[in-house]
């Protein structure tokens, strides 16, 4: 449709790339490949059985666990501890975080405290927790609650800070009460940040299960792992670790689902 007086060439393409694409099943393939290599290595002997358990043995350990009903006997106390502890830690954390976000005075007083609390290893405090909360479930709940509390606080007040100030000014300009603004603007606006903080908090909660069950727990995935570890029973150790890892992936998926449902309004 035109008459170029010189050579006509297509415009060279130089775009594309730098855009993450979803490729399905590669993750699964990598995972299966790793398992297969471990199986092969342990069977062929070039991976010593001190180094890694044979994946099929881990699987059969897991099946034993399931068949004997021990799986539930270990899983249920752990899930209870995780649930109670993290519900405690997360709700108090969100409450404190919102208050820090709203009141400069509280912020000035508590933020340094939380920052100082964060890098304290919770296992270091185990002996104290026994005195404070006893050796029964109390100290386990408390440990998980403390572990989930600090990251939740940090995520929550960050989320409150990130609520679009123009929305708040809008609320004020329409004469909304302070409480209305908090309830209808600040809290929903902070929700995405709080939920993504929850991801980290719950992962930490799962990690702390093992520490919590160091103390006087007969049943529980953490106790199971500890026992297996101290007996150098790698099959059981890995079975337990796989359960925790699956638990972590699962909670993360649940949060993803909640986000999808509750935050459908996001762009």
């Amino acid at each position, binding site marked *: 449709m035109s008459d170029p007086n010189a050579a006509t060439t297509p415009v060279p393409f130089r775009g594309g790339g730098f855009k993450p694409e979803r490729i399905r099943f590669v993750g699964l393939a990598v995972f299966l490949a790793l398992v297969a290599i471990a199986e092969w290595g342990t069977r062929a002997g070039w991976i010593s059985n001190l180094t890694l358990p044979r994946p099929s043995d881990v699987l059969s350990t897991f099946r034993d666990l399931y068949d004997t009903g021990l799986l539930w006997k270990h899983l249920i106390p752990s899930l209870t501890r995780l649930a109670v502890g993290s519900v405690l830690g997360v709700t108090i954390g969100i409450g404190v975080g919102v208050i820090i976000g709203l009141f400069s005075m509280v912020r000035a007083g508590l933020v340094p405290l939380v920052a100082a609390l964060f890098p304290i290893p919770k296992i270091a405090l185990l*002996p104290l927790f*026994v*005195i404070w909360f*006893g*050796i029964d479930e109390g100290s386990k709940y408390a440990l998980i609650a403390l572990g989930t509390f600090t990251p939740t606080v940090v995520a929550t007040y960050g989320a409150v800070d990130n609520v679009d100030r123009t929305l708040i000014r809008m609320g004020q300009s329409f004469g909304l009460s302070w409480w209305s603004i908090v309830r209808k603007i600040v809290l929903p606006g902070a929700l995405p940040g709080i939920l993504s903080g929850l991801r980290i908090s719950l992962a930490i909660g799962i990690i702390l299960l093992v520490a919590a069950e*160091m*103390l*006087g727990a007969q049943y529980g995935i953490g106790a199971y792992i500890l026992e297996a570890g*101290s007996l*150098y029973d790698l099959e059981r150790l890995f079975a337990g670790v796989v359960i925790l890892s699956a638990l972590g992936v699962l909670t993360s998926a649940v949060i993803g689902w909640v986000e999808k449902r509750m935050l459908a309004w996001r762009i």
Partner: protein
Amino acid sequence: ANTKVTVGALAFTSHAASFVAYERGYFAEAGLEVDFKFFQAAQPMAVAIASGDADFGVTAISGGLISLAEKGATKVIGGALSEEKGIDGQKILVSDAAYQAGITTPKLLDGKKFGITQSGSSFHYMGAKMAAAEGIDLNYIPLQKVPAVIGALKSGQIDAWAIVPHIAKPLAGSGAVHIIGDVADYIPDYQVTSVFTSANNAANERAKSAAFLAAFAKGAADFNAALVDKTAGDDAAEEMVKLVHKYVYADRPYDKAKPGIVNGAMRINAGAALNTTSVKDQLDWFIAEGLIKGHITMETLVDPSYVETM
């Protein structure tokens, strides 16, 4: 009129006296309704007694126990496991690598790595006493838990360790480690474990504590007769092993568990008598090492009014 009592225990043969007293109804006879609470390690058990989560326990005299006593929380009220010449006691072990390198007596351990669970644990004490007697220096490696020490010793990452016979013998049998000495040679009449309770029980619940000790002593007597002195005959021994097997190595078949239980049988002091000389020696050692505060005395740690002392 049964008094409810919580007894802290580890699933070890050294706690057998309590198990026997429970199974044979000695606690019930003494008017105690006993509830066992099992622990993975002695340290949390001591803390649990301090916090009131458990009433009585049996454990080695560790730095943690002394510290809790210093804070007015716990008291030693009786003795349990003892080293005794002639009865198989705790052994000094070396790794195969060290053995092959020519370390065949404790004297040759100078500068070597000696496994302990924690500073201030009984392993630390045994190593230190042995080193002092031999005039050598040891390098103490804390590994938190007994199984970790076993693993490190087997793989040659540490050179030596000292441990009760029922663990030492099977290990030596497998050839991965070698027994090169007896703890009893260095610490005669060593009071390995003791019975302790909260300071409140010791001072204000005398009846309960005395009842516990009495029942405990009965259990200990049965145990000694069956497995240590072997005066009760083979049947009684067999029965005793079966009883203990309910609590110790419960996850192993009886045949496999039996040697462990039999080998682990060390004397539990008659009448829960307490060897205060040995306790004093241990206390002095802790103070000398700077592991505990220097002002702690025997009175702080021990309530000698319950049992005979030696």
